[in-house]
């Protein structure tokens, strides 16, 4: 019998009707493979009984009674599962380090990282909201494997619903004896509490996260010592991402061997992505590792809307990299993304079409990272600020020869010398856009032209008289009354008044304004 984990594939055999097609037959769902999201939409997350009815909490007794802690660790190692929070470190190896670590006080901790700071990412929130017990079950199993007696779910306070769901799940699991003392009569004790974070991006970094849990300022510290040696209150601590934890029950139930059958050589299992941007179907998707970007963007995502041309995908959040159309057949796994200069990150995928300016995009991500830098170390704090200044100059038509090289020089030092992952990855959006779209940078710097017609300082809105029918729609939308002209005759834009909002460009049906935005030379 197939378990709910294979929901999409098991349903394929059901008869389809034209009137109301099966969900699983729709392009968006067809090639998804739901493991972490196995209960998506199938259960009421506030009812533990529903999770149990769908086969939940079956892995836990197996881990408690049929397996030794070493066997659990081995199973996770066999599965090839790698951390879903960013760096992709093999989970089993991390567990083994924590399991074998000596604790002076005898305590060990496990932490679920639900900080999820990437703008536009919502996989962890969705998991906690829709299936909190899967995460919890994973944590109990992990705690058992590593010998931890206390756990924390660190979740940002901007996720009030997720906080409620996981808090309620903890209460219910305690009521059922699945959490607390002597779990299921096994003599094993494990408690979990929820810690709400203030929402700083950097608090997702593990050492800053631990400082935050301990009540200190959320700033990263150098490693070593790694959390597995000396984490919370100096005790061995294992931190995993929400999605990593949610995969554990499947692995224990069905075996590491089974899990490692999914995915690519070095990247096993499935990954949840939040597919957003200029793509027809947006939302959370879960696919086997190794699926190509083309399949994700076009088969699942349904391609770029409004007939625009696909340009690139930003993978891995603000500190990820931009992958151009020429690499659209890239299989998405940790290694391939790294080779392309991007990262898996926590699974953000932002699709961009031809109307995106790559320099402006890099400037946007760099500004985000500038604001989120904790300020502790010089290359990240000062270097990202300088990158943002240079990028701002470039998009505002003040770029100078040598700016691109200066960006590369800064990027090198920031990557090599920053203390934590935020700084080490911050140059990625700049480096990848320079690598794949250097001509766009040069066009901005040398010719003061923005090929995507995005950078306001370099464009002028002008009516093309031959095409203007004088319909006056632009006159109505212009917020500053910059357009005038008699009905049915070509209009005129008063460039002194125009604030370049683009409203006329959007509204004009005759391409009279749009097509020919001209450039300042």
């Amino acid at each position, binding site marked *: 019998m197939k378990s709910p984990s294979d929901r999409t594939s098991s349903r394929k055999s059901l008869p389809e009707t034209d009137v109301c097609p099966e969900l699983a037959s729709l392009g968006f769902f067809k090639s998804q493979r739901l493991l972490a999201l196995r209960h998506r939409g199938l259960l009421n997350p506030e009812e533990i009984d529903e999770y149990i009815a769908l086969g939940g909490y079956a892995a836990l007794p197996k881990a408690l009674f049929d397996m030794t802690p070493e066997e659990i660790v081995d199973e996770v190692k066999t599965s090839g599962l790698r951390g879903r929070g960013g760096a992709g470190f093999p989970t089993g190896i991390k567990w083994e380090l924590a399991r074998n670590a000596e604790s002076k006080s005898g305590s060990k901790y496990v932490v679920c990282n639900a900080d999820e700071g990437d703008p536009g990412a919502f996989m962890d929130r969705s998991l906690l909201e829709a299936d909190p017990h899967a995460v919890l079950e994973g944590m109990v199993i992990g705690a058992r494997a590593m010998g931890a007696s206390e756990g924390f779910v660190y979740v940002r306070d901007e996720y009030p619903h997720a906080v409620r769901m996981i808090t309620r799940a903890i209460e219910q699991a305690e009521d059922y004896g699945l959490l607390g003392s002597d779990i299921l009569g096994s003599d094993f004790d494990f408690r979990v509490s929820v810690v709400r974070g203030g929402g*700083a991006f*950097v608090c997702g970094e593990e050492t800053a996260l631990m400082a935050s849990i301990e009540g200190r*300022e959320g*700033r990263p*510290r*150098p490693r*070593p010592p790694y959390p597995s040696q000396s984490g919370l209150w100096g005790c061995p601590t294992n931190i995993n991402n929400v999605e990593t934890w949610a995969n554990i029950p499947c692995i224990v139930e069905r075996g590491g061997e089974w899990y490692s059958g999914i995915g690519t050589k070095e990247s096993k299992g499935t990954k949840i992505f939040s597919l957003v941007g200029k793509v027809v179907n947006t939302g959370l998707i879960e696919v086997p590792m190794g699926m190509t970007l083309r399949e994700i963007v076009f088969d699942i995502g349904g391609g770029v809307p409004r007939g625009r041309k696909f340009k690139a995908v930003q993978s891995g959040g603000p500190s990820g990299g931009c992958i151009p159309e020429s690499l659209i057949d890239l299989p998405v796994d940790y290694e391939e993304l790294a080779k392309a200069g991007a990262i898996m990150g926590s699974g953000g995928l932002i699709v961009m079409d031809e109307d995106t300016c790559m320099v402006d995009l890099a400037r946007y991500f760099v500004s985000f990272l*500038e*604001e*989120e*830098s*904790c*300020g*502790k*170390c*010089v*290359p990240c*704090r*000062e*270097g990202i*600020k*300088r990158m943002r*200044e240079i990028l701002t100059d470039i998009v505002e038509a003040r770029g100078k020869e040598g700016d691109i090289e*200066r960006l590369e*020089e*800064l990027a*090198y*030092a920031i990557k*090599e*010398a*920053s*203390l934590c992952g935020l700084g080490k990855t911050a140059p990625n959006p700049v480096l990848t856009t320079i690598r794949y779209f250097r001509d766009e940078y040069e066009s901005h710097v040398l010719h003061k032209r923005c090929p995507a017609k995005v950078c306001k300082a370099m464009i002028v809105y002008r009516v093309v008289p031959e095409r203007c029918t004088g319909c006056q729609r632009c006159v109505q939308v212009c917020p500053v009354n910059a357009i005038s002209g008699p009905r049915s005759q070509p209009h005129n834009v008063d460039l002194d008044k125009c604030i370049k909002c683009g409203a006329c460009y959007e509204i004009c049906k005759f391409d009279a304004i749009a097509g020919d935005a001209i450039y300042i030379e």
Partner: protein
Amino acid sequence: MVSFRMNRRTLKVEDGTTVLEAARDAGIYIPTLCYHPALESVGACRLCMVELSHRGRTGHVAACVTPAVDGSTVKTDTPAVKRIRKTVLELLIARCPEVAILRELGERLGVGEPPYPLENEACLLCGICVRACREIVGAEAIGFAERGAASEVLPPFAVPSARCISCGTCTTVCPARTFELSKVDAVGTMHGDSDDVRTRKCVVCDEHYTSS
């Protein structure tokens, strides 16, 4: 004991010795700024970056917070290390062009005017004062406020802190000489940027110290 190579020499040091301490003992120069021998190292300025190779992997690490590893190789003067140092120091000079110690370091490392618009900050944000106040004085009267480039050393909530005992340690250790601690009757200035603090007179030494 740990035995490892630094540049062309083999060094033997106690377990737990950092790369920086080992280098200093051996007379090998590595520039530092946020390091202070009496305080916990935090790896903030990143001027002490060196190249570390171990078990076939090579990367750059901060010498002040990296323990020497048996069998590893450290290089303190490669072109890449110099390139990183140069950028880091340029970034610092651009932030604090008036701070003498940066210009001295610039002279020693051959780093001149930075290619960025100059700011005029007095504080390097090295955190030595914060650590000294916490670790040596035990007062914890100052800490970092804000984040990123907006960071500042301030008493909690930017309100003059009752915990400051006007000991002056922070002013003494500051490599940039940013602090001014004046002992005016009944009013002390705890930090360059903060407001004045009401002080009380000590019955023994007659000096003023702050109190709420």
